């Protein structure tokens, strides 16, 4: 598989004040994250609020520059945001957001908005191209004359998708693309994304808090916690035999018909990135935490079976087996 995009050791920090006269504290939204996106494959990025998955999406696209680490597109470094080279790169990488209404201009027709990327990048435009894109996204040709507020939520998301596909991008980053939609529409959009990817050979970064959806569309899954990837592997492997304690809790929390076994309940709330625990970020909530976890943050390393895990215990267990 060809590597389309590679992100190495990304760090993204924000400065925040606690109250009007508190000290300035540093919030690490992304704290040492590496991932690889392959052509024609989908990487699912899953995690809860505050884990940094949206920031990761923006870093991957180059919308923000990382404070440390780098993003490389087909070997060359990502140009700085706003530069000419970066703008040209937009034709090859696009984004789909959670709120389709917010992503569309209220005063322009759907057709105009779908055509816009073509005009910006100097590609052939015109009503035939627009119709082809709309049909591919599951809309009708006459939707081109409508305005966003005249469409349903699902139709709007399809319009956003049509616009994103206009320049035939090699990479599509989807940040919670289905969370705001009804269940039956979610299924439609998921099917559509998979179909489009198969047909166009596009790479996709699918960011979501919904593990079920991520399993459905992804070839590979990465679980994030407080700015780091804590586990990465094939979807079924991660879902059926999670190695990291957080991944285990996440999987057991999924409400699903026919779920077997007891829910693992995590105590406390999802952590505040402004208030990082020492060592392993998960250790305050981990039932299996031991001394080393408080002191040293585990690195994301492969196990013998290829699964990437960032947990002292997961690797220690392996060593025991070998010994």
């Amino acid at each position, binding site marked *: 598989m060809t590597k389309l995009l590679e992100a190495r050791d990304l760090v993204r920090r924000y400065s925040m004040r606690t109250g009007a006269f508190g000290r300035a504290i540093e919030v690490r939204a992304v704290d040492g994250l590496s991932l690889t996106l392959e052509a024609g494959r989908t990487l699912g990025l899953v995690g*809860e*609020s505050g884990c940094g998955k949206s920031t990761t999406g923006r870093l991957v696209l180059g919308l923000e520059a990382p404070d440390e680490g780098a993003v490389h597109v087909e070997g060359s470094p990502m140009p700085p945001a706003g530069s000419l080279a970066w703008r040209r790169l937009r034709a090859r990488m696009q984004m789909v957001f959670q709120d389709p209404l917010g992503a569309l201009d209220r005063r322009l027709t759907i057709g105009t908005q779908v055509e816009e990327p073509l005009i910006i990048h100097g590609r052939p435009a015109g009503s035939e191209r627009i119709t082809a894109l709309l049909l591919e996204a599951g809309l009708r040709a006459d939707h081109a004359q409508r305005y966003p507020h005249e469409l*349903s939520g*699902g*139709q709007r998301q399809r319009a956003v998708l049509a616009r994103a596909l206009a320049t035939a991008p090699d990479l599509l980053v989807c940040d919670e693309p289905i969370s705001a939609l*009804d*269940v*039956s*529409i*979610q*299924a*439609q959009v*998921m*099917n559509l994304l*998979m*179909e489009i990817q198969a047909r166009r050979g596009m790479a996709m970064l699918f960011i979501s*808090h*919904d*593990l*079920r*959806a991520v*399993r*459905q569309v992804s070839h590979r899954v990465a679980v994030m916690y407080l700015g780091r990837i804590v586990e990465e592997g094939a979807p*079924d492997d991660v*879902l*059926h035999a999670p190695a990291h304690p957080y991944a285990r*809790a*996440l999987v*057991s*929390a*999924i*409400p*699903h*018909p*026919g*779920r077997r076994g007891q*829910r693992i*309940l*995590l105590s*406390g*709330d*999802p952590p505040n990135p402004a208030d990082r625990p020492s060592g392993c970020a998960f250790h305050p909530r981990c039932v299996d935490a031991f001394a080393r976890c408080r002191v040293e943050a585990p690195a994301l390393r492969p196990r013998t079976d290829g699964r990437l895990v960032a947990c002292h215990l997961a690797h220690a267990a392996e060593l025991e087996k070998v010994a």
Partner: protein
Amino acid sequence: MSLIRIRNLTVSFDGQAALRGIDLDVAPGEVLGLVGESGCGKSVTWLAALGLLPAKARITGSVHLNDTELLGASATTLERVRGGRVAMIFQDPASSLNPVHRVGKQITEALTLHQGLRGGAARAEARRLLDAVGMPDATRRLDAYPHELSGGQNQRVMIAIALAGQPEVLVADEPTTALDVTIQAQILDLLQGLRRDLKMALVLITHDLGVVSDVCERVAVMYAGRIVEEAPAERLFAAPVHPYTQGLLGALPPIEGERRPLTAIPGGVPEPSAMPPGCAFAPRCPQVRMECAIAPPPLTRTSAVQRAACVLARDALVAA
């Protein structure tokens, strides 16, 4: 003997029907799931029952709480029932709590209304309730404002407020939709535990069939203002009769098994102003027949415990 009996409840706003005839029973202590997508009327049903809809809503039918008729009841009766016998909690806990009142005050307000507690006694009881809903450091949290707490903590406060009136039924309207999955698990677990300990009935309104399968004993599926299927949870997931239920189940990405395209019900829910004359689901139904366009099918029994509003129900009954 049903605790709540809803018969032929209809609700319309400015001539548009939001609810088109609901018959529903809630038995004491049971966990009922009410499932459906946006616009199906699952929230409107309970808002109408408690008289919480705006004045312009036209409501007909009957809602019996034991012997009391709730529709058209006096303000005093309704105020006693709300929170005192039927409590309701809502979807977004952060915006469902008054931002300028401390959390403790919002709980003691309910305690004063329904249990007549005041001052120190009320505060002590509020603290006990916060403990019971799993709020860490309950004493300090009593003086917190909603914006100082997380979403999960706010939802616990809402539940504590709901419990303050010692209700017989707790209606939870999408209580976990706005929360993270791990917090959702905590809250659902809490609701189940409380229901067991307090022998309270729980009506769980949600669009997430997964949540329903985990928590509910009985499930009613709603579509476009009507109940289209009703069955015990296991039965519903094993052998759904109504094509909409089948579609909803097929739309749920499976956790295991082969990955193939999900059953996507084509099209969308019809607008209230453009409701088809017969069965509301007919335009999207993969098993539609000619008779479906004539009149909306009534809820027909397919077995002792299952009902479906579909012409197929007849066939299922015959086959059974």
